[in-house]
């Protein structure tokens, strides 16, 4: 593992989380040691895989024992409009002898095997803990394989024990910057070319927003990495601007592309009606500032007006059902404030939200939107969560899968808004989807049934009390 790369990533000035820290804190960066026995979350390898796996036409080969890939492959819902190769799990499945003697040769042969059988435009090779520990030289193997096969074999050097998922996202970004972006030329370019960075097309969310850009006349030249082909990413340096989808993942790509190619970027979100409109507006403005004809602005404004109207009209019927309902919002990847704003539009009351992964900027924004009564939880233990839910402080909880069963076992409605979810919530239609799902969940007749004690229990109780 290159410590130079690591240092660079930790010092990433474009990372809002880092900017908000002072110099010594920044040095510590994301290396913050986890507490043994009380840690949660994936490893750097996991993060790198999340960021790159959505590239649909390459072989994703995991160099390590079966634990890393065998326990985790094909477990996300990043969707593809074409190639399905990305859903095939490849691993060197290191055995005891590989651990003792090193597995570089095995890796080299595994790459050859995968190329011979699947003929991909490129191979992404992921480092994991054990080969990193025993000193397998990933970079050298990939270099030799690239030369031999005449196609890019790219080392993704983010072994799990290097750090968190977030670090892995960034290391994946570094690999793209170093080995992929700018290595090929696009077939066509237009003044309306925009890249999306950090959108993974989970449950097809990219497809909810792509038509909106297109309606305005903006071409999504490349998406890193949702529904991407290798060549899109290799040639994405010719686009006019970048949109960074989540502020924390892969900000390094946006910043360095600005440095290298003079491509401006902005940060935006697809969640929430206002946010989606802002994103479209900013995209258009940025492209115009880069020389796109300025009628783009008008067309964008027209799309926004039409779509907003349509969305609000579709949301209206839900308002009467949802007004006054109390929501507990525990999010990871999705920015809290953009969802908060949307829920408030429905008259819902957000009684608390987690800010564990939010930046200072996010927190300020939440305070602005939710006002003084905002409960922001740095860390809400499952036990406290359970207590809050059982005390009926919330009518519904929105969170990631991790806390799903805390809510359900407390017989409180719950909706998945993290990566493993099956519904797409991006864009205007996505917000309507989210609100519709909240309504379906809240109004489901099971809640009344499951909360009712069994007849013998309810009849026994008064007697005992009396």
């Amino acid at each position, binding site marked *: 593992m290159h410590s130079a790369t690591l240092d660079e990533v930790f010092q990433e000035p474009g990372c809002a989380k880092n900017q908000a820290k002072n110099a010594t804190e920044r040095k510590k960066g994301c290396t913050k040691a986890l*507490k043994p026995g009380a840690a949660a979350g994936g*490893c750097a390898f996991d993060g790198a895989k999340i960021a790159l796996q959505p590239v649909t036409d390459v072989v994703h080969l995991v160099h390590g024992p079966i*634990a890393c890939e065998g*326990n985790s*492959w094909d*477990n996300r819902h990043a969707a593809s409009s074409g190639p399905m190769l990305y859903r*095939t799990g490849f691993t060197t499945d290191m055995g005891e002898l590989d651990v003792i003697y090193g597995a570089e040769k095995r890796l080299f042969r595994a790459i050859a095997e995968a190329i011979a059988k699947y003929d991909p435009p490129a191979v992404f090779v992921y480092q994991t803990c054990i080969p990193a520990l025993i000193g397998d030289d990933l970079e050298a193997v990939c270099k030799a394989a690239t030369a031999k096969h005449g196609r890019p074999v790219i080392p993704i050097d983010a072994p*799990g024990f290097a750090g968190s998922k977030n670090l892995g996202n960034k290391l994946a970004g570094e690999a793209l910057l170093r080995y992929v972006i700018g290595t090929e030329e696009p077939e066509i370019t237009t003044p309306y070319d925009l890249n999306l960075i950090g959108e993974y097309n989970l449950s097809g969310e990219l497809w909810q927003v792509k038509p909106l850009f297109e309606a305005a006349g903006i071409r999504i030249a490349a998406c890193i990495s949702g529904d991407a082909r290798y060549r899109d990413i290799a040639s994405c340096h010719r686009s006019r601007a970048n949109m960074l989808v989540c502020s924390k993942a892969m900000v390094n790509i946006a910043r360095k592309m600005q440095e290298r190619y003079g491509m401006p970027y902005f940060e935006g979100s697809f969640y929430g009606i206002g946010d989606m409109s802002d994103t479209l507006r900013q995209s258009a403005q940025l492209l115009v500032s880069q020389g796109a004809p300025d009628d783009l602005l008008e067309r964008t404004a027209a799309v926004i007006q039409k779509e907003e109207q349509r969305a609000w009209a579709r949301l209206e019927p839900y308002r009467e059902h949802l007004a006054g309902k109390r929501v507990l919002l525990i999010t990871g990847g999705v920015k809290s404030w953009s969802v908060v704003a949307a829920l408030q539009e429905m008259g819902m009351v957000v009684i608390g939200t987690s800010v564990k992964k939010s930046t200072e900027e996010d927190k300020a924004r939440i305070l602005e939107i939710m006002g003084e009564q905002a409960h922001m939880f740095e860390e809400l233990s499952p036990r406290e969560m359970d207590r809050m839910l059982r005390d009926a402080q919330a009518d519904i909880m929105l969170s990631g899968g991790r806390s799903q069963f805390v809510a359900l076992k407390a017989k409180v409605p719950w909706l998945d808004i993290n990566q493993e979810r099956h519904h797409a919530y991006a864009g205007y239609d996505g917000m309507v989807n989210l609100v519709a799902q909240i309504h379906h969940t809240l109004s489901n007749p099971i809640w009344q049934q499951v909360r009712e004690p069994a007849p013998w229990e309810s009849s026994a109780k008064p007697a005992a009390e009396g």
Partner: protein
Amino acid sequence: MAHVVNARKQCTVNPLKMSQPLGGALAFLGIENSMPLFHGSQGCTAFGMVLLVRHFRESIPLQTTAMNEATTILGGYENLEEAILTIHKKNTPALIGICSTGLTETKGDDGAGYMKLIRQRHPELADTALVYASTPDYKGCFQDGYAAACSAIIETMVPQGPGARRERLLNLLPGCHLTPGDVEAIKETAALFGCEMTALPDLSGSLDGHVADHFTPTSLGGTTQEAIAQLGAAQHTIAIGEHMRGPAELLQQRCGVPCTVLPRLTGLLPCDAFVALLAELSGKEVPQSLRRERSRLVDAMLDGHFFFGGQRIAIAAEPDLLIALGHFMAEMGATLHAAVTTSDAPGLAGLPMDQVLVGDLADFEQHAAGADLLVTHAHGRQAAQRLGVPLFRVGIPIFDRLGAAHAVHVGYRGTMTLLFALANMLLESHDTNAHRHGHPAPVQDTDNHARENLATC
């Protein structure tokens, strides 16, 4: 007789196998108030947890010693100690079940030595059972890790020496291919003979998907500490699955409890062997209700065999699950078209086919071409789609269907349920195929035949 052949590839494609520590964690999850702990880097725990959560649709307690590069090189004692103390303080489990991982095994952490040292230094942990299982990821597979954890529990928690033998107290060592529903069904059958049965581990108490009154950060039920301490006093141990032979014989060595290893409990004859054993051990007659269940299974076999005869079945599963299902299919008249498994294990050679392949789901897909039915875990869905062959999901993980924990495929009744489910699937695919090709499939003929016979009776 089957030859067990290794696929011998450099690159595993679409893994069938899962790693040892995960199997170890599953075993520890079947102990009451326990917290499994992976001694390794955080990612292994996160992946393992997600996988089990999606399969069981339950919260899964699972922790990590959060090793990083530096602590790995220096040795993991401090992380392990800190993790145990933190878990003890935060969650007060009765048992902390430690599984080593590839990382800490590569470094050569001395687990047994570490445990001794922790015990010496921390008398405050006296009431907490600490069990350490060596489960490197780069060796063996899920069922090996599960068995290793069971052996470690016996080694650490069952007092040595013959206890006062208690008649009609039986031990059950269920293999990891048995669901919580299976374990419960077996215990109920034993109860019919007036036998009390302690299962180690007992997933029917912890991962059976029930709603508890209070939130618990540790396992929701399972084998109690007291019951584990009493394992040595049992009259007999019944182990299901060849991979449980190790723990069963360990218990025999330590405490003199005789054991019987039943390779499987699916199918008429294996069920008969089990029931006969219970009758013998208890000295009781086989109760009427069980005779009736047997008779229903016999009837189901008579009704169902039409649909299995000549059908080509492809199975990919861990060794003991493959053995259980493979024999059953063959006993129903089906042909084992392809079999892929995760490691060479005893018993595989007995399968009625030419070759069992140790390989992955890409091998499976290749060899399963031409089969009428695929049988494997949920990751087989891509192969099923590409081949256009229906998939019957078994084992772990099953993340795209509900009720995995409650499926019962053992005992007379469980076998009958399995038989119907498989037969219906075969029927359905034949119906669709028949329509597609525009001529009735042979299976339909038999069906009509059966109906005609019925009409004339």
